[in-house]
């Protein structure tokens, strides 16, 4: 029972962080219909921004998370305006090529700028408590709470604000939205920046919990894609559920059987979902 609870807590924590990365990716796809392969690089840059802010310059951790989100939001918005806007409406392969190029450029530049040594962001919260044999790390609890709060905040933003409504409208039907007066160009860079900022915050959280290295983005992108395909392209709720499923598989199966089986099972679940629901658990059928 204790082990099961430990596994569930670990899986929940992992799942929320995975969801945070994947929600950014699905938001970008939903609004712009582009596959942003460099999403993991935003995750990496977010983590390194916090690292320099907090570990190198000794500035406040939580302010650093905010700074990281703002910096990467701006960076994402600039990338959208400069690189992706000219490709809007053109063959998806063009934007795919650009985002793949960005992966190489950002990852290689990261290695030159940040070095290749693994780094760690000091924990903002330490300690924990043993409850009936199950260890509850305060750091993991805080990170889970922050991740959950951000996901809820994003949900409210998309549902309850004018800009959120515009984002959803553009995601639903860009042409009709434009006819209704929605400035789609503005929505594009906001969505791209917002998605990138979500990845940056996830990078801060996971970077604190684990470690950071300039090549960390690749795996984050893979996980995010697995989750987005599972939950459905463009669906924020689907990304949350997909993240939790993947987190639970990673935790429970790795603990009870092995990491290899967990990896295999993750893909088996994705295949099964695609067979029975080709658009993912909560996705819509994109033309």
């Amino acid at each position, binding site marked *: 029972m204790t082990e099961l609870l430990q596994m569930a807590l670990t899986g929940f924590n992992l799942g929320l962080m995975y969801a945070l990365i994947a929600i950014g990716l699905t938001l970008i796809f939903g609004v712009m219909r582009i596959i942003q392969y460099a999403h993991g690089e935003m995750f990496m840059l977010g983590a390194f921004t916090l690292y320099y802010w907090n570990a190198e310059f000794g500035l406040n951790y939580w302010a650093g998370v905010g700074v990281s989100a703002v910096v990467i939001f701006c960076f994402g918005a600039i990338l959208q305006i400069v690189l992706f806007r000219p490709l809007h409406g053109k063959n998806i392969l063009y934007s795919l090529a650009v985002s793949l190029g960005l992966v190489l450029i950002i990852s290689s530049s990261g290695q030159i700028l940040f070095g*290749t040594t693994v780094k760690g962001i000091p924990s903002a919260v330490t300690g924990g408590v043993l409850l009936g044999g199950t260890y509850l790390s305060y750091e993991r609890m805080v990170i889970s709470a922050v991740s959950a709060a951000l996901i809820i905040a994003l949900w409210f933003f998309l549902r309850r604000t004018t800009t959120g409504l515009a984002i959803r409208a553009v995601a639903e039907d860009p042409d009709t939205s434009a006819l209704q007066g929605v400035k789609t160009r503005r929505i594009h860079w906001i969505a791209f920046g917002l998605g990138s900022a979500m990845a940056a915050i996830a990078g801060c959280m996971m970077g604190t919990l684990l470690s950071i290295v300039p090549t960390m983005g690749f795996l984050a992108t893979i996980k995010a894609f697995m989750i987005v395909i599972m939950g459905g392209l463009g669906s924020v709720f689907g990304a949350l559920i997909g993240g939790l499923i993947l987190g639970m598989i990673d935790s429970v199966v790795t603990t009870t059987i092995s990491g290899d089986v967990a990896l295999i099972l993750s893909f088996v679940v994705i295949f099964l979902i695609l067979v029975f629901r080709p658009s993912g658990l909560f996705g819509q059928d994109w033309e």
Partner: protein
Amino acid sequence: MTNKKSNLSRRLTRRGLLKQGSMAIAGGLAAPAILPKSAFAQTRTIKIGGAVPLSGPVAYWGQSTMQGFVDGAAVMNEAGGIMIDGEPYMLEVINYDTKGEVADSRAATMRLVEQDECKFVYSQAAASTVGMLQVTEPAEVLSIVACWGYLELFGTDYPLHFRGEMSDYEQGFAYMPFMIEKYGKDALKSAAFIGPDDQDGIDCHFSYERLMKHYGVEQKAVEYYNWEDTDFYPIVAKTIREKPDFIVTSPSPPGITASIIKAAREMGYQGPISSPAASETETILEVAGEHASGVILPVTNINPSSPTQKAIEKRFLERFGTFNALAGNYSWWIYALKAALEMAGTATDTKAVAEALAQVELEDTYVGRTKWAGKNAYGLNRQGVYDCFTTTIDDGKAELADVRFPDLPDTF
């Protein structure tokens, strides 16, 4: 004034020039018979090639290895080169990036061997070593690498292949006696292994098994993680469920080791955690934070103190702007090669140089005393063995705790 003018005129006359030129030519032709040979020998160059990961996930190791060769060659060249059979040779170090990939390493090594005509090459980490060996042995090129796994690519079938870095097996004969002294034999009756799920991890587990058997330690758990794993809580939970007295994380890099330490300590595990590959205390302290305690890091010298160590540290800082424990550890390879070249008296016969290299013992390197051993374990003396500097981390503080030459058994 007159004399001066007269001297000047004499120097500038055509006849005088012709006369002096004739004398110079005559003297030049006669010189080899009169003066020592070395005074006229054209300085030759020995090219040493590096097919090393200079970018990618293992670039840190590759750059550290490269720095050892670049620095060593510069030091030797500044001292007039190395003398082989009475003739001076300068050293030229050429490096190509393998990105830590087998195919790139193979291509880089082919370029070094065929285009640059290197007879001596070096590499770092398993993938680059595998790629390099596809080229070097058939081409009779001598290689020195740091690689712990792929033991089938080491030994009698690869007589020109040297492994300069002690693997977890050799290190074990230093860190196990140290741990027994530190914690007591009764506190180290059982162990668990956590390593990557690849050939390196499997081979290191094989070495770990032999080591634990040698010291009579029961093996309680063996866990492999995927490089794709992001959180080590599940695998550590599974490991500590078996209640091992200590954990060995081999050959896990510092970041992963730190994550394992952090997870284990958070879940209440209190036994020592030894990591033969994670020679980077700063990363462990940063990542594991308050949980960095009871950590044993063999071949990690955080306190260079001998004149040789301090000189190497100073030179590396001046030349590369950085210095780390690993770069120091690899710095002795080129000095061993120099000794072998001088001993063999040839810069071209790699078989002779290999035989000489196997005999080389150095007394005062960054890692103290060095020699090549492993005849009984691998079939040939091609494994570098040296003083093992062990650093411990307790309560978030790293300190150099032990220096000893591995207590190698007769079977090694």
